């Protein structure tokens, strides 16, 4: 009997996660377009449904009804599998994300580790997609994406280790519970006992944007240089999956930031804790990401790597050592 309930629960979570990922991907595109439009003093999508709210559905129908074109000379198996690799790990990661005290598909002790493990698979999709396309622009883009991801995974992991050290667990739920109470207990504030909190938070946020290939770090799809980068040759749902994977990754990055630094589902004032606080914090972060995309010009590959190796890694290493020292001294 126990098993039966477990299976039903798992199915519900599976469907819920896929729906959440897909719905977010679709509506974040709407947010992005509408937000960009209003930042630029335009109106954005407005014809399909009220405020253009049905636009994502129309886009989806259009993408799905398009013919899947496989250009001559591509490496067919890799070409077909790359969009899947972009999407599947993104959905897998949602399994361990605690949306609230009770809403979590699988409470794994090494949740954080699992997220990073699956997050690094994402770069494989870009590499394969770019490589298999047999397009020079796509290959350049794939090479860029890989060097970028390698450079940013290091500081990101170092920062994650810092947080693990501070809270003493790799279980995401316990990391959130560590920050219970009020906003003064959150990891991103120095009041939590770790005076380097704000810096850690900013570093992690930058790494998260670089990891998800978001502007201003979207070197892989720099349209003025590489047309559309690794997905130049993709159309139809192949492109759609890449797109959804990208937005799912943004949601994951924001969710992870909320878990690690902003106290998860806890209310800033210690009242009415619950999933809504998690979502509010997450969408605020996502809005910041959208705003950043529509404000800055793109960095070059060199300054991107410089930022990682010359600023982020030294800072995060120093941060790690200082946090370790603080924990030792303060007990």
């Amino acid at each position: 009997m126990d098993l039966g309930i477990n299976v039903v629960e798992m199915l519900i979570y599976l469907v819920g996660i896929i729906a959440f990922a897909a719905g977010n991907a679709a509506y974040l595109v709407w947010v992005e377009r509408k937000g960009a439009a209003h930042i630029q003093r335009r109106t954005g999508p407005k014809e399909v449904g009220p405020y253009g709210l049905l636009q994502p559905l129309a886009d989806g129908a259009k993408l799905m009804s398009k013919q899947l074109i496989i250009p001559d000379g591509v490496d067919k198996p890799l070409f077909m599998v790359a969009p899947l690799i972009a999407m599947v790990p993104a959905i897998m990661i949602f399994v361990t994300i605690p949306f609230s005290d009770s809403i979590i598909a699988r409470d794994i002790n090494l949740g954080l580790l699992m997220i990073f493990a699956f997050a690094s698979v994402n770069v494989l999709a870009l590499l394969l997609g770019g490589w298999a396309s047999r397009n020079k622009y796509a290959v350049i883009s794939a090479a860029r994406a890989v060097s970028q991801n390698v450079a940013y995974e290091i500081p990101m992991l170092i920062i994650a280790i810092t947080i693990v050290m501070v809270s003493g667990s790799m279980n995401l739920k316990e990391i959130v519970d560590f920050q219970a109470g009020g906003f003064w207990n959150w990891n991103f504030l120095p009041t939590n006992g770790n005076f380097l909190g704000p810096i850690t938070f900013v570093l992690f946020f930058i790494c998260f944007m670089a990891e998800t290939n978001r502007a201003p770090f979207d070197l892989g799809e720099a349209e003025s240089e590489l047309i559309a980068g690794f997905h130049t040759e993709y159309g139809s749902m192949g492109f759609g999956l890449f797109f959804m994977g990208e937005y799912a990754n943004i949601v994951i990055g924001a969710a992870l930031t909320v878990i690690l630094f902003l106290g998860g589902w806890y209310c800033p004032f210690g009242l009415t804790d619950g999933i809504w606080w998690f979502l509010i914090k997450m969408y605020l972060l996502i809005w910041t990401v959208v705003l950043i995309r529509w404000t800055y010009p793109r960095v070059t590959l060199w300054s991107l790597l410089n930022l990682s190796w010359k600023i982020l890694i030294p800072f995060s290493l120093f941060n790690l050592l200082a946090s370790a020292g603080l924990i030792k001294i303060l007990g």
Partner: protein
Amino acid sequence: MAGYFTNILSGTKSLLVGLSITQREFFKKPVTLQYPWESLEMTPRYRGHIQLVKDGETGTHKCISCGLCDKGCPSGCITVKGEKQEGVKVKVLVRYDLDFTKCSLCGQCIDNCKPGAIEFSKEYNLASTRKEDFYYDLLKRLKEQK
């Protein structure tokens, strides 16, 4: 080493200033015009394709078919045909064709026209998939204006 930290600080500040500007603009009203639903009134000097001026007194055009517009047209898109008719001193206009596909709207025909018989129309919603739609018979157009 001090330069390293001041660079980071000033850089971060410039990024935050940029963000505050775009966030401010976000709350302002859009400046665009929702074209198919609203459209602008053209200014009096707007240059659409040319048309024959309707004379208020006689109710017809003022063209004397001198052909100066035809001769002066850089793109050769105007064809004027006049005929000698009984009892009329000047030539009578029988055809005034404009090939708008070639016209560059320089306005030299209007400058050349002594009696002021042609003017720019204010039409700008011109779109078609057929080239022939832009061969205008201006005499016919004048009659239809009534």
